[in-house]
């Protein structure tokens, strides 16, 4: 239906001789929203002489115009032409589909999925007295897996030693030919392979078994029969010590939001170390209590390649496999799923894995950077794909209630020789400023606020450099001074 132009005629007393009425007209587009009324009136106004404008009969023009528009609009809408629909069935099916996909009532009885039920029950469990038992249970499970892992390593090692000895024996038998040696080695290798496969199968069977058992217990709300209690002692210095400094800042124009900013330099390996291995019970508590909450912890890790299976820092994959992942897919499976979704990733892309068995984080954002970026001290600006990827991460964080986020402060995990002090300061300034900008921007994204932002510096950074970078934080984030007490 096309819009049309009609003329609005109106009569006002004449400009020169008020006793003679003059007729004017004004072209108007129909349909006409009611907001347009003022615009049309202003146009009419500008055509008239002041004398005419303030005459009483002009006041009627507004009313006249209003009525005119109403009736013209009505006529326009009444002449609605039935659109030609080529495939009526298709049209109807699509419309029905829309209702089905958007209305709860039409979406089919929405029974929660197993994951949701498990999540709900688990969340309830860790917020009850049974929290301790949950952790003890999980720890025991983890110990089994860890032992299996160790055993596997030991066994394979022994096998290798044994095979080595056999090879040496063979070689010492002087009349053996090269082909014999080769075939012997091949046989040895296949034994190795089969053994490894068998052991790995054992391990994954155990993992599947643990997972099913645990999930069944939780879902069926059976009690976890565990003995023993937790030692709440934090084991000291199992990890290397690191530097850390915290700040509080209020960001935003006019309306301020409070954020915690922390700058620190633990090794990323410590940061997402396996949850149950070193007796860090408090860490486990935090991770499990918040797992299904609306305040998640996220960690950004840079990955230097674009092949997903190789991407994630090998340590992380290894750590994830140290215990059973009861809540999500086992890490290799998650990576496979990602490859299915996005076979090829390029710098600035991000892939996301979820974890319940690492300290410090529930979600890892693997930010893809090219190898050159990771290896050298490149100069970048705020439009660099990695920075843009960081912004996307912040968006996802806000959308999915990640309220505590750790980002690499220099976009590097290790120091290298070409990372000079001035370079580090420039890079830190760029990253900090961008991060600040994103945090402020996030306030308008309508999601969760990042209440804690951690800036992770390379673990092998010198103390001097760390303190000079830490000193930049209050300047860049305009840290508010401690509360001002007014003297009375």
């Amino acid at each position, binding site marked *: 239906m096309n819009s049309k132009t009609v003329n609005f005629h109106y009569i006002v007393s004449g400009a020169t001789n008020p006793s003679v009425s003059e007729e004017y007209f004004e072209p108007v587009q129909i349909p006409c929203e009611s907001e347009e009324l003022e615009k049309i009136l202003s146009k009419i106004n500008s055509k008239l002489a002041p004398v005419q404008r303030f005459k009483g009969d002009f006041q009627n023009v507004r009313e006249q115009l209003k009525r005119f528009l109403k009736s013209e609009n009505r006529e326009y809408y009444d002449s609605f032409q039935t659109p030609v629909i080529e495939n009526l069935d298709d049209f109807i*099916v699509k419309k029905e589909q829309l209702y089905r996909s958007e*209305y*709860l009532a039409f979406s089919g009885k929405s029974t929660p999925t197993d994951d949701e039920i498990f999540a709900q029950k688990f969340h309830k469990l860790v917020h009850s007295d049974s929290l301790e038992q949950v952790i003890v249970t999980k720890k025991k499970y983890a110990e089994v897996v860890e032992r299996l892992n160790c055993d596997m390593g030991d066994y394979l090692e022994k096998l290798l030693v044994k095979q080595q000895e056999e090879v040496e024996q063979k070689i010492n038998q002087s009349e053996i030919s090269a082909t014999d040696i080769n075939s012997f080695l091949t046989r040895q290798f296949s034994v190795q392979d089969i053994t490894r496969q068998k052991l790995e199968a054992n391990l994954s069977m155990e993992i599947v078994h643990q997972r099913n058992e645990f999930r069944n217990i939780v879902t069926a709300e059976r009690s976890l029969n565990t003995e023993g209690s937790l030692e709440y002692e934090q084991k000291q210095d199992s990890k290397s010590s690191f530097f850390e400094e915290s700040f509080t800042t209020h960001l935003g124009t*006019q309306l301020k939001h409070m954020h915690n900013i922390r700058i620190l330099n633990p090794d990323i390996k410590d940061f997402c170390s396996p949850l149950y291995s070193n007796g860090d019970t408090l860490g486990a508590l935090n991770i499990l209590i918040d797992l299904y909450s609306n305040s998640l912890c996220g960690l950004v890790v840079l990955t230097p390649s674009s092949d997903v299976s190789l991407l994630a820092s090998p340590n992380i994959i290894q750590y994830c496999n140290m215990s059973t992942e009861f809540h999500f897919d086992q890490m290799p499976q998650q990576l496979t799923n990602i490859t299915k*979704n996005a076979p090829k990733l390029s710098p600035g*892309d991000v892939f996301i894995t979820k974890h319940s068995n690492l300290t410090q984080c529930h*979600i890892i954002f693997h930010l893809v950077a090219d190898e050159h970026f990771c290896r050298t001290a490149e100069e970048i600006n705020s439009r660099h794909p990695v920075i843009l990827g960081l912004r996307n*991460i912040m968006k*996802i964080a806000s959308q999915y209630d990640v309220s505590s986020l750790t980002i690499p402060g220099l976009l590097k995990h290790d120091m290298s020789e070409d990372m000079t002090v001035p370079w580090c300061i420039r890079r830190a300034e760029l990253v900090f400023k961008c991060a600040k900008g994103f945090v402020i921007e996030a306030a308008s994204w309508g999601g969760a606020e990042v209440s804690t932002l951690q800036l992770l510096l390379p673990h092998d950074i010198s103390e001097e450099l760390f303190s000079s970078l830490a000193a930049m934080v209050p300047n860049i984030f305009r840290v508010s001074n401690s509360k001002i007490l007014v003297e009375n």
Partner: protein
Amino acid sequence: MSPSVSLISSKFAASIFYAKSHQGETCGSNGLPLTLNSIAVFGRAQSMKALKHPNLCQYLDFIRSKHERMIVVSEYHGTTLEEKFHMIKNNQQNILRIFHQIASALTFLDEKDLIVHNLEPKHILLDELNNVKIFNYGLFNMTNCGEYVSFPIGNLCYFSPERILGSTKNIKSDVWSLGIMMTELFLDFKFCDNWKLSNTMRKILSFQGCENVLQKIASEFDRTNEYEKLPKDIRNLLEKCLTVSLKDRLLPEEIIDHEAFRENLEFHLYTNPPKNKESLLNLPLDQIYHLWMLAGGDVHAELKKERLIRCEPPILLTPNVVTLDGKALGAKKSQSYLYDDRIAILSLSNLKERLKKISPLRYFPLIHTPSCPYNYNNGMEKLPLVIRERDTEYQFHRILLFDRMLKGYPSTRDMIVKEAQTDIPPFLRGKIWAAILDVIPNGSYTGIDKVTPTQTDRQIEVDVPRCHQYDEYLSSPDGHRKLKRLLKAWVTAHPQYVYWQGLDSLTAPFLYLNFNDEELAFLSLYKFVPKYLQWFFLKDNSAVIKEYLSKFAQLTAYHEPVLSTHLVGINFIPELFAIPWFLTMFSHVFPLHKILHLWDKLMLGDNSYPLFIGISILKQLRPTLLSSGFNECILLFSDLPDIVMENCVVQSQEMYETTPKSLSHREHISREEKAGEWDISDLTLDQIQSELCPRISANDFVDLLRYSPERLCPVDLRGALEFSRLYIEGSINIPFTSVSLSEKNLESLGIPDLNKILEERIIVVYSNLHENCILFSKFLVECGVPRVCVLHKGFDILHTIVPNILLSK
């Protein structure tokens, strides 16, 4: 308690929906981030609150929360037509009455160019007298014809053929829905009940080209008998509502005039229900709702209780890949965001419990009867403002009191001002401010041209989307449009002025408070500017601003000598930071909720009040400022840290009350009386700029001398001989020629216990030679002595005071 009673006693319900979230990169054509759809809905929805019609449920509140969630609170009263269907269907008179009342509601909406689009029995509420109230009629409009949401709006059963095919803006489609609902009642059946959606649509579309839809429905649904029994006029009415041709279908206003309603006209109209025995329930709904919230009402919690807010743990929903261009892959679609049209009834029992002890008399405060106290503050006024603002009973009294006084405005204006000095209830703030500013709406705003393009449009276009954008009102597209209109109207109404950046911030609080009443917002601004910012918006306002800032510097020296000396020392002059403070009356530097409290007091003071606010801000930042150099100060003020507003208000109020008026004298204000001989007048800008201390008028000096000499310490700089001849009682003589000012130390003056003498007093320096006063007062300030001022026109003026105040030995 029977279920119907509990329904009657509850009046509100909340419903919930989710706005569509923007996908991918979110930047508009102006380079600014796109407005969230929920904010757009929020802005559009506000106007719905103003819709008042006996047959419409009143909208009360719109609450936005994270992840695009919108909660709508509205009146909800009675039982749905769906539930009452079987009680109504056999009574033709009653059906006609419902018919008539729905049609009159539609007529009302049509006048405002609003379409319902989701008219269905579930949304027709019937009270105990079977009066109609339509519920949820605003959804289509507040979502901009469904633009802002992803779900389709409306129940397909009641859709007309053209509506299914995409016609959206015709009220006659609602008439069809009405027709179907009424046909159901008259013929006692349910149209397409529990059908598959696709079959329903096919059925409705099959009516196209049909001459008599009513007959067709009757025969297809096996209702021919009932159809034939229908009286002719009713049959005719239904047929005309259910014609496929839009031109022939009735308009709502034509339904009302239809012959079927001719008889018994009175009977069809809305009958007022009897007054409720509980006085609380007779209050206006928005007041009850406001009190309900104060009494701990929590809409979120009620919705959660009804399981209308369902939360899946976010970790189960995350995508697993996010590409550089912001596309998220592998995210699970959450069930929580689907549209669910159920509602949660908000129980009033908490509020009733809170207010049950209040005697019915207190619902009617008598403000003109001195024998009946109308003030039920119970000493609450001594508690901090935040507590008062959240106290249900206190606010109850305040709202009722102000409401009553506002009804008597303008004759009650003085009472309003007096009561506002205690505090202003947030619920009525916009109207109270307008009353304090002497605003009397007269319809003039409509006549002001707000659309003709002008030169300032571009600047306004740039400023509006940057003005207090954290706020939902001001960041919504409707808020932008309104602010733009207000600014343009102000510029048109003041040809002598220009638009200075900052006017947008100045307008923001008024728009925020009167979002649905642009005229009130405009007139408040119109009155506010000359009261506090006279001539600030001249094209060349430099003289005005310079005078203002010099006055500010002088008063800072008066109240905060140490700080002032430090700032002067590092050359950090007010021009560097205070212009946006005063030009926008602080509305540019603080968030709205703080401005409101600040302005509550500002409104009651005169044009000098803002100066004291400025000083109290400096006071709060004092420790930081004293330890900062020039650069740090600039940085600090470029993004002002959080200021504790309550302290700021208390301090500025105190300074405002204790500082003699003439100290803040400025030439550039609108003045009603001419300055007299003993007032300050004819000061040039150069004079003000060259003097560190403010001048006091002879009038104020004499007042202090007569009425509170204990607060005054006159310092006479004339020679000892002259002093012994004529002097002011209680004055100290420090002959200027005898002192050395090189050492900034009070003890160098050689007067024992001078510190003690000056304490807590207003120090007025005078002499025969004005230059001496300037030098000496500056010396005092540099010694850190507060409250130093100089007598305007010096000692000589004191000769002229009658009766004589000079003594001689």
